[in-house]
């Protein structure tokens, strides 16, 4: 143990008292600017609406710490960036703790209690750890520079798909400059720090308590050796050290002062954003309070404080930009740019001392900083952006809230208007009469129970596409046969079933959603059943996650879970194995929305198929383009549709036989895409139910034959 008090670093060694005062004055000013900046930011957030995110504070805090320590979200889909960030992050944390330790002794424990601890062994280990930390930060920053300069990642290109090159806010070059200033600033602070360390060592090389222990600061010692070898002696080093000391101190403190005004603030905003993360974001959209007159987001102050915080948390990493299906096909939407537009808008308006007029706060429109209507309508609410955002930005609730305003003001495609009116009138989105909802049952060789009239075990909520669309009816009938074969006691709501409302809500027609949800809930509540099953992931999501907000607490399963169980329990028996090469498309509402990744895959394996995954699978599944009401708005002709983009991905799989889907809308979208993209005759698009039906042993021959014919 080395307890020598001399083995330490004397702070302000060789400084005149006036210099020390000057340094303190400068330090306090930096802190004052920092605090003022924090105040301005907090005032900005407080100008937003209330948000209920404060609940379960401790659990949220714990989650945040865990996410930060593991760097889980930053490593996803970009390991190298995650590691580089970890190096910078942990290095920075250690350097910060180091500085805090010195301050603790120098400004608190020593002057107040005469207690010192920063010497001897502790000091030496401290020096070593901080040297390593500094090196880690430099390595991390160098990688980040390399990545920006040479990797040319499309996700780091700030050009916007929603603006023309001639628009002033098109390429966001000021962000690029800020990024570089930040990286250079960081690296200069660290390099000067090491040089400072080295020059101090040379300066004090005749003091054995310094020089003999120099290898505890390996980087500093190495540089010192080199410099000394170049002929720099203690005196020159002393002068050099004084100049460098001020330079290093000056930029380090400026850096601190600038934190709240630059991208560096993400160290606070991103942590806070992670802490207030809502695991149900997008899956359960916010309700509109009964007594609230206005609906949706019109002005920037209609956003909640948490939304505003989200805007500031964005680090422009571009992961959402890369994952977004709308952006991928050239639609005028990038989730990143929606967030950044709103952020700039908030900074320009809400950081002012006085809140500007209402008219200047309108976020909708065609001006610089405003969000275009086309941008909002391009979103398919697929949740790919929310899923991948490393700092828990919740884009979809913001987009839907903004759409609610558009719907309220009638700013939408006329064809969508027609659909909404027809949903209100007929209870379905297909423009069909209510009476025809259960018409498909007429072709079955048996009758399905009417769950409104008699108790059943399982209530089957069919959904619009599965009920009315001819291609999907084939699947729907097969599922009925499977349920009957398995001996499940099930029934339907027949004409009383209405569109579940999932997509209506995501369009932003909240009033119509409330109408549909409450109607379905009251119908369901009058029936006697144990659980609900559906083949439609959209209905599944809203009944599972959103109906509870309206008083409808039901147990609901997607068919993949139910069939898997029936197969495992032997209630359905397979008499055939399929020797097929298949791939599986995760529907957004089953996969990302509800984490139902495994059941369909397990079934596919039970059927004996060879499952080859597409590159974008599970949580990175690529939306078919039908979500968020986009199935009712025709995609522009001439540009690729998301479904075509996806089907090309499947087309790369060698000898693919079947592209398997497990969602009625997917079946419609991909049947179409397969034809338009030229894969007819190459592979087929099938519902998983169809493959199951091929392999299941049916007791009743007529049912079996019928199924084959179907």
């Amino acid at each position, binding site marked *: 143990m080395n307890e020598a008090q001399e083995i330490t670093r004397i702070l302000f060694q060789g400084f005149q008292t006036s210099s020390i005062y000057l340094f303190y004055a400068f330090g306090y000013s930096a802190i004052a600017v920092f605090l003022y900046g924090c105040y301005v930011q907090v005032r900005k957030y407080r100008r937003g609406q209330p948000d209920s995110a404060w609940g379960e504070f401790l659990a949220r805090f714990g989650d945040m710490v865990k996410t930060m320590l593991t760097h889980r979200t930053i490593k996803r889909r970009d390991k190298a960036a995650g590691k580089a960030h970890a190096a910078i992050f942990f290095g920075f944390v250690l350097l910060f703790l180091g500085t805090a330790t010195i301050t603790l002794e120098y400004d608190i424990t020593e002057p107040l209690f005469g207690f010192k601890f920063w010497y001897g062994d502790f000091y030496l280990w401290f020096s070593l750890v901080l040297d390593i930390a500094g090196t880690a930060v430099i390595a991390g920053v160098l990688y980040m520079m390399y990545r920006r300069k040479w990797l040319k990642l499309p996700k780091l290109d700030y050009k916007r798909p929603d603006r023309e090159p001639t628009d002033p806010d098109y390429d966001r070059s000021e962000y690029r400059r800020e990024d570089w200033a930040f990286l250079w600033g960081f690296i200069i602070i660290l390099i000067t720090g090491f040089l400072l360390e080295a020059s101090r060592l040379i300066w004090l090389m005749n003091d054995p308590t310094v020089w003999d222990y120099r290898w505890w600061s390996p980087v500093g010692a190495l540089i010192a050796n080199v410099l000394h070898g170049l002929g720099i002696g203690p005196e020159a080093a002393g002068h050099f050290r004084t100049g460098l000391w001020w330079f290093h101190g000056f930029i380090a403190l400026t850096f601190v002062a600038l934190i709240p005004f630059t991208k560096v603030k993400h160290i606070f905003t991103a942590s806070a954003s992670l802490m207030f993360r809502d695991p149900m974001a997008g899956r359960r959209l916010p309700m509109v309070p009964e007594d609230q007159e206005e609906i949706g987001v019109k002005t920037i102050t209609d956003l909640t404080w948490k939304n505003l915080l989200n805007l500031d948390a964005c680090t422009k990493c571009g992961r959402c930009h890369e994952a977004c299906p709308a952006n991928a096909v050239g639609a005028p939407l990038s989730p990143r740019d929606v967030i950044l537009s709103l952020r700039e808008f908030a900074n320009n308006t809400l950081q002012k001392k006085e809140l500007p007029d209402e008219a200047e706060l309108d976020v909708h429109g065609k001006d610089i900083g405003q969000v275009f209507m086309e941008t909002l309508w391009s979103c398919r609410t697929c949740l790919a952006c929310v899923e991948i955002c490393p700092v828990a930005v919740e884009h979809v609730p913001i987009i839907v809230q903004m759409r609610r305003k558009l719907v*309220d003001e*009638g700013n*939408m495609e006329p064809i969508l208007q027609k659909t909404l009116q027809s949903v209100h009138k007929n209870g379905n989105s297909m423009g069909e009469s209510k*009476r025809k909802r259960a018409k498909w049952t007429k072709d079955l060789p048996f009758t399905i129970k009417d769950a409104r009239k008699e108790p059943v075990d399982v209530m089957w909520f069919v959904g619009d596409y599965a009920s009315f669309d001819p291609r999907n009816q084939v699947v729907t009938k097969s599922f009925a046969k499977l349920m009957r074969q398995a001996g499940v006691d099930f029934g339907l709501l027949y004409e009383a079933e209405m569109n579940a409302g999932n997509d209506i809500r995501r369009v932003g*027609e909240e009033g119509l959603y409330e109408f549909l949800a409450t109607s379905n809930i009251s119908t369901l509540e009058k029936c006697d059943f144990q659980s609900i099953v559906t083949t439609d992931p959209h209905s599944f999501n809203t009944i599972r996650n959103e109906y509870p907000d309206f008083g409808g607490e039901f147990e609901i399963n997607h068919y993949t879970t139910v069939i898997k169980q029936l197969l495992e329990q032997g209630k359905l028996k397979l008499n055939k194995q399929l020797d097929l090469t298949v791939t599986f498309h995760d529907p957004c509402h089953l996969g990302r929305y509800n984490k139902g990744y495994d059941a369909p895959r397990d079934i596919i394996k039970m059927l004996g198929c060879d499952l080859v995954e597409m590159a974008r699978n599970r949580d990175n599944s690529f939306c078919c383009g039908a979500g968020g009401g986009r199935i009712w708005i025709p995609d522009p002709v001439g540009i690729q549709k998301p479904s075509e983009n996806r089907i090309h991905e499947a087309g790369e799989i060698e000898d693919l036989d079947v592209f398997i889907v497990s969602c009625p809308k997917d079946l419609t979208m991909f049947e179409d895409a397969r034809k338009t993209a030229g894969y007819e005759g190459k592979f087929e698009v099938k519902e998983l139910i169809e493959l199951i039906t091929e392999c299941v042993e049916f007791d009743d021959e007529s049912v079996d034959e019928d199924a084959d014919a179907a």
Partner: protein
Amino acid sequence: MKILVAVKEVASLDDDFEIRDDHLDVDEDFLLYDLNEWDDYSLEEAMNIKEASDSDVEVVVVSVGPDRVEESLRKCLAKGADRAIRVWSDEMEGSDSITIGRVLAAVAEQEKPDMIFAGVQSSDDANASTGISLSSYLNWPHAAVVAGLEYTPGSNKAVVTRELEGGMAQEVEISCPAVLTIQLGINTPRYASLRGIKQAAAKPIEEISLSDLGLSAEDVGAYASFARVRRMYIPEKGMATMIDGTPAEQAAKLAEIIKEYRGEL
């Protein structure tokens, strides 16, 4: 300044439907009611004038019909109409479009609007005569099938573009007050969000009966109408046949068919 917009709640048919036992109408069970499509456009035209005007413009919607009509009137209120009036007495059952015109004229005499809009026609009965009959009872000028309108509230003239056959248009100057029947496509009707409709539920709908209008039972209903429904039925289909062959063969076949109909064969 006031614009009166006459609207109708129309019925649309389900694919499968049945005709009532008295064979005068479709069984109500098979009807879906909604605001007449043309009326969406005439209300929108009134709303556009209101919103573009510096002076105060009141938009009043009126409809003749039973309780259920309230739903359509609510939709109009949700779109921004200032007031809604529903006229009904049981005696009005069976009124034809001319008689409805008379009732609406009585409302207009009380409301004293500066302009009246109606749809060109209703999608269910398609008589295209209610608006015109209203103007003749009022003895006001009218323009039918209006596809374009230039009008400043308060002025005594309006320029209307009427849609004619064969893609032609006619520009007409008309003295106001006038009755205009509005054609589809003149504007883009706004969407009434369901929340808007719900909120409009709080707005009152004025109810007016026969006696409030100074009319008697003889003035309305089937009795006063010039046209009465005698029978509603689905005409037999499949009566057409294609005759193949040379002209001579076709003529021979035709002659045969005629003879058959005359009972000569």
